[in-house]
C-alpha cells in the first residue's frame, strides 16, 4: 500500500483508471458517496477487476455526533446512527455500532476492517476514551467473530487536539497497547480556509504520533491527505488516501456539517513534485510557462507532455489531473521511503523542501503571482517548522 484513492462523488471511473495504470494501490470506500447496495456492487466489481487492489471502508461514523449533519447516503447504512451525543456510547450500544460496521465491511470483502470512531477534539476529554472504547470493542468483536481480517483502529481528531503534546503522549501510551494491525487516521483541519497550511507544532506532533505507531510495527493509513503524505510517509505511514478535489485531500468537515457552500466546479489543478504543492493550470501554470520557467515546476509524470510547452485547461480534465496527482505522490513517496532509517527519510524530505523553496524564489523573481494563496510556499515553511518540532520531540 502507498497511495490509495479516496472515494468521492462520481470518482469511480478515475479510480478504475488509477488502478489500471498502477498509480494507486487501492481504494478507501466512502458510505457517504454511495448507498449500501451500490457500494456492495461497486466493491464486488473492484474485487473482480482489480484482484490485487487493497479495499478499505471508512465507516464515517464520526459524522454521527454532528448536530443536523449532511449525511447524504450514510443514513441508509444499518450500522450508522444519526444525532448521537456522548450519552449514546454505553458498552451495549458501542457493541451494537461495532457489530454493524464490521458486518458491512465483511459483507463487501474488504482487505482491512476499519473500526467506527468519533471525532476527538481533545485527548484529555471523554471523547478520547470513547474512541478507544470503540476501537477496543472492535478488536474484541473481530477476534470473537473470527472475521479473519486484519483490523485498523480508526482515529479521527481535530488538528487542535494535537497541540497538547503531553496529552498526545498519554493517548499513544494507551493505543500502542492495542493488539491490532494498525490505525486509520483522519485529521480535521482547524482552519480549512488556510489549507494546505496548518499549525506546525500540531503537524510536528502528528509526525511523532505516526513515527511512534510505525516503530511499534503498526500499519498507519491516513485518510484525506495531499502532499502532506510525503511527510507522513517519511515518519512511517504506510498508505494514504487522496483524490481529485480538495474535498478529498483534507477531511471536508464543512460538507459533513452542512456549513460549506456548494461552490462552483473546482479549477483544474496541476500537482508539482518540485513545489510539493498544486496550482491552477490557468492562470498559474500558464504564467509560469510564459515566464519560461515551466521546466522548473513540471513533475516529470507521464501526463506532463499534454501541458508542455503551452498549458491549457482543456487537455487537463479531472481524470488526467487526478491520475497525475496520484502518480506524483506515488513517485515522491517511493523516493523518500527507499531508506528505512527515519533520519535519512526526514533528510530526504528536507532536501525536497529546500528545492521547493528555491523554486518558489525563482518563480517570485520571475514575477509569478499565485491565483490562490494555497499555491504559495507557506505550506513548505510550515513543514520546516514541523520537522524541527518533530526532531525536538524525538530528542527528548
Amino acid at each position: 500500500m502507498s497511495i490509495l484513492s479516496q472515494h468521492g462523488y462520481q470518482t469511480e471511473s478515475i479510480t478504475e483508471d488509477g488502478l489500471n495504470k498502477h498509480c494507486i494501490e487501492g481504494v478507501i470506500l466512502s458510505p457517504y458517496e454511495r448507498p449500501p447496495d451500490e457500494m456492495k456492487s461497486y466493491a464486488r466489481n473492484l474485487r473482480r477487476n482489480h484482484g490485487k487492489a487493497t479495499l478499505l471502508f471508512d465507516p464515517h461514523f464520526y459524522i454521527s455526533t454532528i448536530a443536523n449533519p449532511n449525511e447524504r447516503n450514510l443514513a441508509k447504512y444499518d450500522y450508522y446512527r444519526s444525532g448521537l451525543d456522548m450519552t449514546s456510547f454505553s458498552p451495549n450500544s458501542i457493541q451494537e455500532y461495532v457489530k454493524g460496521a464490521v458486518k458491512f465491511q465483511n459483507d463487501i470483502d474488504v482487505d482491512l476492517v476499519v473500526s467506527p470512531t468519533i471525532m476527538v477534539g481533545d485527548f484529555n476529554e471523554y471523547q478520547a476514551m470513547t474512541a478507544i472504547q470503540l476501537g477496543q470493542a472492535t478488536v474484541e468483536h473481530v477476534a470473537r467473530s473470527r472475521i479473519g481480517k486484519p483490523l485498523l483502529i480508526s482515529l479521527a481528531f481535530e488538528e487542535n487536539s494535537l497541540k497538547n503534546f503531553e496529552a498526545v503522549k498519554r493517548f499513544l501510551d494507551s493505543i500502542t497497547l492495542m493488539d491490532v494491525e494498525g490505525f486509520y487516521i483522519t485529521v480535521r483541519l482547524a482552519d480549512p480556509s488556510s489549507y494546505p497550511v496548518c499549525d506546525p507544532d500540531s503537524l510536528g506532533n502528528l509526525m511523532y504520533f505516526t513515527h511512534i505507531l510505525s516503530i511499534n510495527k503498526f500499519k498507519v493509513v491516513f485518510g484525506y491527505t495531499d502532499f502532506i503524505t510525503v511527510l507522513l510517509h517519511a515518519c512511517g505511514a504506510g498508505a494514504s488516501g487522496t483524490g481529485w478535489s480538495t474535498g478529498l485531500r483534507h477531511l471536508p468537515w464543512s460538507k459533513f456539517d452542512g456549513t460549506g457552500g456548494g461552490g462552483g466546479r473546482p479549477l483544474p489543478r496541476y500537482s508539482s513534485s518540485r513545489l510539493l504543492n498544486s496550482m491552477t493550470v490557468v492562470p498559474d501554470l500558464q504564467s509560469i510557462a510564459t515566464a519560461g520557467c515551466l521546466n522548473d515546476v513540471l513533475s516529470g509524470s507521464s501526463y506532463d507532455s499534454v501541458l508542455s510547452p503551452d498549458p491549457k485547461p482543456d487537455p487537463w480534465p479531472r481524470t488526467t489531473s487526478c491520475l497525475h496527482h496520484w502518480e506524483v505522490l506515488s513517485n515522491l513517496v517511493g523516493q523518500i521511503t527507499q531508506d528505512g532509517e527515519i533520519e535519512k527519510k526526514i533528510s530526504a524530505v528536507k532536501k525536497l523542501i529546500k528545492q521547493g523553496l528555491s523554486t518558489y524564489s525563482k518563480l517570485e523573481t520571475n514575477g509569478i503571482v499565485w491565483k490562490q494563496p494555497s499555491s504559495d510556499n507557506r505550506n513548505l515553511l510550515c513543514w520546516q517548522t514541523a520537522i524541527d518540532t518533530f526532531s525536538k520531540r524525538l530528542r527528548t
Partner: protein
Amino acid sequence: MLYIFTDQCKIGRVNAPVCGGWAMLSEVPSKESILSAISGIDSISDPIQGGQKIVYPVVIRGKKYALKVIPLKNEPVDDGDDSFSISVDDVFLRIKREVETLDECSVPQLVKLGPIPMSIVEVDDGPKIIYAEEWVNGRSIREMIRIQGSISASEVVRIGIDVTKAVKALWSVSKVHRDIKPENIIRRNEGGFVLLDLGFALDLDDISLTGSNLVCGTVPYYSPEQTDPANKRRLDFRSDLYSLGVVMLEALTGCNPFVSRDGSIASTVRSIQTMEIRPTLDTPEIPQSLKAVLLRMMAKEPHLRYRSCDVLLDSLNKVGKSLAGGLT
C-alpha cells in the same frame, strides 16, 4: 528491641508498611509452633527472611518447599499528618491475590504453589496466613553481581528472556509485578531464571490494595511513570519491562545508573525521570545489538518501549543468537 524487617515503600513523605510485617523477633513463630499447627510437614528448618513473609524451608512427602507465614494483624501507620492502618482484610486480600496469580500463571519463570494451600491458622495465639511454594534452589542476581562483579552479555540476555516470559504471563491476567529487581530474580541451579515476590503485583482489573498515595516497589528500579503515584492505575507491563532493563544494565555493568551518590530518594527519582541513559550504555561490556534493545526497554515513555512481550522476546532471541557462543 531487635527489628527483623518491615517491608516499606518509600517515596517522598510516604513511609508505610504495605503488608502485615514482623515487628520483633519474639513474634516469629518457632518451628515447633508451626509443626504443631500444620499437619503433613516431614521436617522444618530455621526461618529465613523472604520479602514480606517469614519463610520456613520444609519437607513434605520427601520434597522441599518454602512455607510462607504472614501475621494477620492491623498495622498502624504514622504518615506525619495522617495516620491510617493497613487492615487485616488488606493483608489477606494482598496475599490471596498473590497466591491466585501464581495459580493462574503456570510458567517456569514464576514459582509454583506447593501442597499447602493458602489458609489462616492459629499459631502462637495469633492468626497467620500460611501457604507453600516450590523451593527454588539457586542464587539471586544480586548475589551473582556481588560475587562476580558483573554478568556476561549472553547470560543477561537469558535473564531478559526468562523474566520477560514471567512478565508476559502476569500481563495475560492483567497483572503488573511492580518490583522487578536483582533480589527478586533467582538463577535456578538447574538453569533458567525465576521471578519472585508478587507481593506488590497490581491487578488492573481489581480494586487497589495500596493507598492512592503509596508507590510500591524499589525506587532505583522504578519506571519513570511509576515515580508518580497518580499514574498507578495507568501502569502496564511496559513498566515492568523498564525495570527489567535496569536490572539487565546493572547485571552488565555492576551498578545501577540511577542510584545517587548521596543516596537520596529524591535525586534517584529525578535521575529516573530525566537522565539520558544512552551514555551509560556506551561501554564495551554491552554489545551493540543488546544496547539497542536496552535503549528501547528503558525509554522514558511507555509508548517508546516494546508494544508487547513477544516483540521484545523476538529481539532478545536475535541478540542471543548474534552473540558469540549464543545464549548460556
